[in-house]
């Protein structure tokens, strides 16, 4: 496996962003936030939030969660109950906003190093499979796992190989 992980301070900034966003906007205190190996670039999850970026590096944020957790987080953001959200569209919108905030905060740490990053808008895939291209030499990827009530929110950041402009 030629794929490398990321600099510790970028991982740390992602962990801090996750903690702050979840506590402030979702009103939940995570049980645990930790870096875990990102062993694949193909993801099948109940909910996958995908947000691409270009700039100094090209890549994607790939944020995964079980639907139960995604609905619970969005319901807390809206101060309602998960059952009140209705169909998945409302949960997808809120989950996309979480991905947006996480990526925006990661961007701040990245740009502070003199890099550039232009973000796409988030896409949320419900019960699908997503593949990102980070299997080649020079690619970098990491994952921060946030555990909330026994469920895991996985926040993956993937830099593609040869991403420089």
């Amino acid at each position, binding site marked *: 496996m030629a794929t490398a992980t990321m600099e510790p301070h970028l991982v740390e900034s992602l962990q801090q962003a996750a903690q*702050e*966003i979840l506590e*402030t*906007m979702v009103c939940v205190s995570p049980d645990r936030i930790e870096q875990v190996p990102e062993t694949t670039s193909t993801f099948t999850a109940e909910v996958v939030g995908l947000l691409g970026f270009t700039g100094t590096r090209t890549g994607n944020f790939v944020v995964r969660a079980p639907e139960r957790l995604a609905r619970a987080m*969005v319901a807390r*953001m*809206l*101060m309602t109950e998960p059952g009140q959200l209705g169909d998945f569209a*409302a949960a997808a*919108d*809120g989950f*996309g*906003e979480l991905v*947006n*905030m*996480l*990526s*925006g*905060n990661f*961007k*701040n740490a990245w*740009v*502070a190093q003199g890099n550039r990053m232009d*973000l796409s*808008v988030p896409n949320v895939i419900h019960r699908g499979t997503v593949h990102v291209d980070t299997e080649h030499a020079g690619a970098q990827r990491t994952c921060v796992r946030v555990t909330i009530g026994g469920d895991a929110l996985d926040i993956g950041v993937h830099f593609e190989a040869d991403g420089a402009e």
Partner: protein
Amino acid sequence: MAKNVLIVDDSATMRKIIMRGIRQAGIQNADFKEAGDGLEGMKAVAAEKFDLILSDVNMPNMNGLDFVKAVADKLGAPPPIVMITGEGSEEVVAQAMSRGAKGYLKKPFTPEKIQEVIGPFLK
């Protein structure tokens, strides 16, 4: 007298959170209108007068930076525009300010921060 506030954000969830946050910040004199992107925001601005505009940056169709410039170009003397964004980098803030924004609020935000940044525009 109630202040007319336009919230431009592609996330309906975030628009609701912003409205709730403003109320939680103790600002009760705001009437809200919503737009899902810069193009919808321009239609709203053409249709009525606002005391304050709150705009996301990263949106489809017309992003927040282009929206700020378009409002300034259209109105000449636009209402204050505050950017609400997860992208708090100096570059984005500088771009927004150079195009006419009067402030920015970084996500995630607290009611205290809302009061500090938005409160002065709604007195």
